[in-house]
């Protein structure tokens, strides 16, 4: 049986979502996507700086088979997030939207209240809504009620590479969520991505750790393998830890008298 990730009406083989931020050169994005097998990648929308030299068009670096996931970064309110989402769809980016509303500028932690409001509005407009949230069981349930396609709790603050600081709460969300759980933000190493997948996360979203590696293409491949390994381990149903030793060889002596 093929193991696919379903988001809205779409199915994906890869459980590694990636981002386009922070690459030293946008020319690395295509090879990174090829090496990682990632089928979903985030982009942001910004006002053009009219005084700066013209910029490279990020969209030209993303192959057609990869699904664009525009984010609403920069939004401080639900209303702004909704506006960005509508613009992105009108501009031809498809129905996927990562809702990201941030009012805490010190730690860049998401504002769950505004995120929920934006999710309610956009789900009604038939967007495939992927909301980035502080790990919270109640918000997870309310996002399901609102029609979100997944819930994306953060592992740790954006770009911090601190891994699963929110591990216990993420586990509780995984245990109770009726929609896919995608761990987004803070995953800094493949082992942390594998850990999230072993816990039963449906996918992870990794940007900074890949984009800022010395070799982002190699890093993309490493994350891909880690996500697959973690997923397989979850499906295999690993036994839990024990305080006592449990012999893996027979406990009899070598030659019994």
């Amino acid at each position, binding site marked *: 049986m093929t193991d696919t990730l379903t988001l809205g009406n779409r199915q994906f083989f890869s459980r590694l979502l990636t*981002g*386009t*931020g*922070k*690459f030293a050169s*946008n020319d690395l994005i295509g090879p990174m996507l090829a090496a990682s097998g990632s089928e979903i990648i*985030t*982009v*942001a*929308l*910004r*006002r*053009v700086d*009219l005084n700066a030299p*013209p*910029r*490279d*068009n*990020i*969209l030209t670096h993303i192959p057609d088979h990869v699904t664009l996931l*525009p*984010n609403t*970064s920069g939004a401080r309110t639900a209303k702004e997030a909704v506006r960005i989402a*509508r*613009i992105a769809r*009108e*501009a031809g*980016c498809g129905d996927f939207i990562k809702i990201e509303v941030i009012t805490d500028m010190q730690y860049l932690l998401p504002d769950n209240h505004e995120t929920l409001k934006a999710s309610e509005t956009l789900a009604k407009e038939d967007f495939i809504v992927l909301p980035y949230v502080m790990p919270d069981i109640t918000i997870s349930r309310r996002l399901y009620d609102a029609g979100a396609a997944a819930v994306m709790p953060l592992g740790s603050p*954006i*770009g911090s590479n601190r891994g699963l600081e929110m591990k216990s709460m993420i586990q509780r969300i995984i245990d109770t969520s009726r929609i896919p759980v995608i761990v987004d*933000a803070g995953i800094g190493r493949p082992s942390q991505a594998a850990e999230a997948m072993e816990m039963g996360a449906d996918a992870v*979203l990794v*940007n*900074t750790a890949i*984009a800022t590696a010395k070799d982002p293409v190699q890093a993309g491949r490493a994350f891909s393998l880690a996500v697959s390994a973690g997923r397989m381990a979850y499906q295999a149903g690993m036994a839990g830890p024990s305080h006592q030793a449990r012999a893996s060889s027979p406990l009899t002596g070598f030659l019994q008298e």
Partner: protein
Amino acid sequence: MKIKLNGEMLETDALTIHALVTARNQDPATLVVEHNHTLVRQTVWDHTRLQEGDTIELLSFVGGG
């Protein structure tokens, strides 16, 4: 005529969105344009006329996570 372009007041001779984009040396392929808070598709930039006091936002997709 005066318009508001990306948050700043601007005196311009451009009569259409297409003329404004060209005058500002912007690559049309990279742009998303909002005219008075409504997205305007590139196919109609040429006959979308500007009027005194219009608000124009020139946006583009950039790298982000």
